[in-house]
């Protein structure tokens, strides 16, 4: 079916500003992705999947300029022993990064995978993204596959001694970065991937993760506090038998952030947890869109998303659990909650379950509420000032999401940051 003219024009206007990288071995995948983009068209406000989040600034030909983020605070995860991979405005900077060799993992820059003849990478690039286009289209991810200018290929074959840390920095007020990472976790291997930092004025990031039987990947990401950024991120994850995927994202500030998680449980007894905690103020807009497909027996999935909103901030949650025929003994859980600190803020939630197996346990819940006045009074009656008491209850509200981080020291670091931010804001 031909695209509506408006949509086609908008799509072509965006495409006109981009050129397909030569990119050797991924060239075919990129051309296929470009064809997908043309077929789907870039998202517009009229699309059901973008009903709550206006994609205009994510698809416009030029990125909206964003002020550079400056802070005296040390960056997230600074105290942690990790392998640092640094991107500035979406470009890998070797001098700022650590030596990429580490036992149990091999890391290559995306543009090097062809000359090194890395088969797994060629077989993964754009593949999970393409699978993730059905039943719901994700044109920004296809755009990413086609035009990504940089990224890394991470091949985990053992249990590296420290986390792989992707660090993003922002140096130009008009930067428009497109990054694409691919990760393959081999059978029995285990890795932690960290992501943080203000990436660019506009950031389109895609990560494809393929976890083989018995593999495990832990992902902890911090987005913020570069408030003027606009970001669309996709994570496509496929899980094999008895594998584990756990992802947590902290988002603080940001006029537009859309984080999509597309998870496919394809092997029996696999576990996928995706969680997010966000704290937004004013013209903050944050969208978590999650799609988890159960296509194997006895798998477990959890979605835990918590949003604290005030001064007119907007939070969006679109979460779906799809249980395919034959995916018996599925245990699916989904909770999305917002804490609205005033009457101006809003939380828009669309929880969905679609189940084609008869022996499953799936539950979902979504709530919006204010601070519990009784609890607030209880704390105050013990002498805790109202602001501190509010912050304590806010942290308590976010705790269920933060608890999804398996590594205690990372979880504590996140909580400490949150405490600091909450305490300092007015």
């Amino acid at each position, binding site marked *: 079916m031909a695209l509506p003219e408006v949509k086609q024009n908008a799509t072509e206007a965006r495409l006109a500003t981009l050129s397909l990288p030569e990119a050797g071995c991924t060239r075919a995948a990129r051309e296929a992705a470009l064809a997908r983009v043309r077929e789907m068209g870039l998202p517009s406000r009229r699309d059901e999947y973008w009903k709550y989040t206006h994609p205009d600034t994510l698809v416009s030909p030029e990125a909206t300029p964003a002020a550079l983020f400056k802070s005296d605070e040390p960056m997230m995860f600074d105290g942690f022993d990790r392998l640092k991979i640094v991107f500035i405005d979406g470009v890998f900077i070797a001098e700022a990064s650590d030596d990429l060799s580490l036992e149990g993992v091999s890391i290559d820059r995306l543009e090097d995978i062809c000359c090194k003849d890395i088969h797994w990478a060629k077989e993964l690039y754009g593949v999970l993204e393409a699978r993730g286009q059905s039943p719901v289209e994700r044109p920004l991810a296809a755009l990413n596959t086609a035009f990504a200018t940089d990224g890394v290929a991470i091949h985990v074959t053992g249990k590296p001694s420290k986390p792989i840390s992707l660090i993003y920095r922002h140096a130009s007020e008009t930067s428009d970065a497109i990054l694409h990472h691919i990760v393959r976790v081999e059978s029995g291997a285990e890795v932690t991937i960290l992501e943080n930092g203000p990436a660019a004025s506009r950031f389109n990031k895609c990560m494809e993760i393929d976890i083989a039987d018995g593999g495990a990947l832990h992902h902890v990401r911090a987005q913020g506090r570069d408030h003027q950024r606009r970001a669309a991120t996709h994570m496509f994850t496929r899980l094999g038998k008895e594998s584990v995927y756990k992802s947590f994202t902290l988002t603080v500030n940001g006029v537009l952030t859309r984080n999509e998680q597309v998870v496919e449980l394809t092997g029996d007894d696999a576990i996928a947890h995706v969680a997010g905690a966000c704290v937004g103020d004013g013209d903050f807009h944050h969208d978590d869109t999650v799609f988890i497909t159960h296509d194997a027996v006895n798998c477990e999935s959890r979605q835990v998303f918590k949003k604290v909103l005030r001064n007119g901030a907007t939070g969006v949650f679109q979460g779906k659990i799809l249980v395919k025929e034959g995916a018996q003994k599925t245990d699916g859980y989904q909770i999305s909650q917002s804490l609205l600190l005033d009457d101006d803020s809003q939380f828009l939630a669309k929880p969905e379950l679609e189940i084609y197996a008869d022996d499953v346990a799936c539950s979902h819940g979504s709530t919006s509420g204010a601070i*519990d006045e009784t*609890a607030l*009074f209880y704390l105050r*009656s013990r*002498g*805790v000032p*109202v602001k501190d008491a509010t912050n304590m209850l806010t942290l308590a509200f976010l705790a269920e999401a933060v608890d999804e981080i398996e590594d205690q020291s990372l979880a504590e670091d996140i909580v400490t940051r949150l405490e600091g931010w909450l305490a300092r804001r007015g």
Partner: protein
Amino acid sequence: MLEIKNLHVKLEEEDKQILKGVDLTVEAGKVHAIMGPNGSGKSTLSYVLSGRDGYEVTEGSATLNGEDLLEMEPEERAAAGVFLAFQYPVEIPGVGNMTFLRTAVNAQRKARGEEELSATDFLKEVRAKAKSLKIDADMLKRPVNVGFSGGEKKRNEILQMAMLEPKMCILDETDSGLDVDAMKLVAEGVNALRNEGRGFLVITHYQRLLDHIKPDVVHIMADGRIVKTGGPDLALEVENNGYADILAEVN
């Protein structure tokens, strides 16, 4: 110490007068009990003194050592020395009991211009006090009151009281939901805190709590007023004859 004069209070939402001229003075070192039938305004009095929202004082005053309580925020009243042991202690998921206690203790110290308690000193103190109330380490670690039994919740209130060392302790139906053994334990905790500088206002329906926490003065409250004041015997009279006789007498 605590001086309440002609206190009139109405519920903000319902425009309903609950307290209709309460006069009450609690001296330092004394235990005053307030008894009275349901709906007489006992709990309202405790909430108004501790600063809960939703009540409007239309007349009268309440001071603690000369300081106007009604002008203060709840946390300021706490720092000034008011403590309310809740009839229904609130469950707060996600906030650790220990974190809560330490935050409260140090917030009060800070408000009074005192030095904050170090983590080690705090831990030592809280462990010793918890032990005497038979509160185990697990209860201290758990989120505030979450999954606590009725007795555990009340013991936890007393632990907070012991840690915060308030000047004026208000106990709102602390005996409700307690079995005899739990009540004894709670009463022992309260009695351990009795001293010359501290006043107590014990609100209860029943005389039995007063067997364990011996009051100096007993007040009967009805329809928003203190209608009768007497010694410990007054509580026994209520226990034997109910409120009807007393109310008939004062009317």
